[in-house]
C-alpha cells in the first residue's frame, strides 16, 4: 500500500519543529540542573558598548528626510532608464530621442518644482507655508 503523498510533508513538518526545539530544550534542562541564571541590571542593559546609554531611544526623523528620499528615487529611476538608452543610442530612431527628452523634461520640471518649494534645503527652521 502506498502511503498518502502528504505523509512526507507531515514528517517534514515534524522534523522542522523538533529540530530547533531540541537544542532549546536541552539548554533549558541545562539551566535547570546545572547553570543557574544570573541576570543583572547591566547584563540586561540594551546598549552593549560599555558606555551608559543617554537620552531617548526613539529618534524622530524630520519629514524632510522622506522628501529627500523621494526626490532621490526620481533620479534613481531616471538613471535606470537613461543607461540602456545611452548604450543603445546609435541604433535608435529620432522618435526615441524625442521620447527620452520629454521624459527628462518631465523630471526636470518636477525637480524645479521641488526646488522652488524648498525641498532641497536641508534642516530649515520653519516649513514652507
Amino acid at each position, binding site marked *: 500500500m502506498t502511503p498518502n503523498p502528504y505523509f512526507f510533508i507531515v514528517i517534514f513538518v515534524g522534523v522542522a519543529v523538533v529540530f530547533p526545539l531540541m537544542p532549546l530544550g536541552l539548554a533549558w534542562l541545562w539551566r535547570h540542573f*546545572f547553570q543557574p541564571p544570573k541576570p543583572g*541590571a547591566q547584563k540586561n542593559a540594551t546598549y552593549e558598548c560599555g*558606555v551608559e546609554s543617554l537620552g531617548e531611544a526613539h529618534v524622530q526623523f524630520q519629514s524632510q528626510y522622506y522628501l529627500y528620499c523621494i526626490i532621490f528615487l526620481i533620479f534613481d529611476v531616471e538613471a535606470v532608464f537613461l543607461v540602456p538608452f545611452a548604450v543603445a543610442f546609435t541604433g535608435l530612431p529620432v522618435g526615441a530621442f524625442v521620447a527620452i527628452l520629454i521624459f527628462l523634461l518631465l523630471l526636470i520640471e518636477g525637480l524645479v518644482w521641488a526646488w522652488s518649494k524648498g525641498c532641497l534645503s536641508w534642516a530649515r527652521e520653519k516649513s514652507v507655508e
Partner: protein
Amino acid sequence: MSEQIDEGLKSELQKQGIWVTSTQELYNWGRRNSIWPLQFGLACCAIEMIATAASRYDLARFGGEVFRPSPRQADLMIVAGTVTKKMAPQIVRLYNQMPDPKYVISMGACAISGGPFKQGYNVLKGIDRYIPVDVYIPGCPPRPEALLHAFMELQRKIDGQKLTGENKAAHLDRAQPSEFPVPAFGAHDLEPPSNLDLFRPPQIERV
C-alpha cells in the same frame, strides 16, 4: 557525574573500540575548543593580539578565532593594553555584559599592574582591581607565542573545572557573582580605587 570514570577501565575500553566519557568532560571539551574572545584592543598589546589571530600564529588552531564584536556572544575578554582610569568603568561594564561562563586574560605589563605607567596619574594599576583575571601574561608587549600559551593555559583551566560538588566552576555556583560593581568617576580618582572583595594588594615580606 561527580564520580570520575576509572582511567584504567577507560583506556581498556578504548582499546576495544568503546569510547566512554562523562557529561563534565564532554561539556568542558566543547567549551575549551570554542572560546570566542571579545573584539577590542586598548593599546599596543592589541597589535600582538591581532598578529596572534592572523595567519602566521593562527589562533584558529585552538578554536579562538571568532572575535565577537558584541559582549553577548563572547566567552573571553583579552584585556590587551594599558587600562586608563577613564576606560576602566567601560571595561568593567563590558565584562558585566558578557554571559557566563566568562574568562579574562590580562595581557601585558600594563593590564597586570600599570606597567611603565604605574606611577602615573591616569593609568589603572592592573585590571584585576575590578574584575577577576584567570591568566596573566607578562611582557611589554608579550609575543604572540605568549598569548597562545596563555590561551592553552586557559583551556587547561577550563578542562579542570568541575560541574558539581564543593569547588565547582564559578558560573555554576549560584552564590558567585556574575557582575562586579562599576567604579565611578570621582573628583580625584576612581571611586572606589579597587574592589576590595576581589583585590588585595600583595603583602610585603622583607627579611
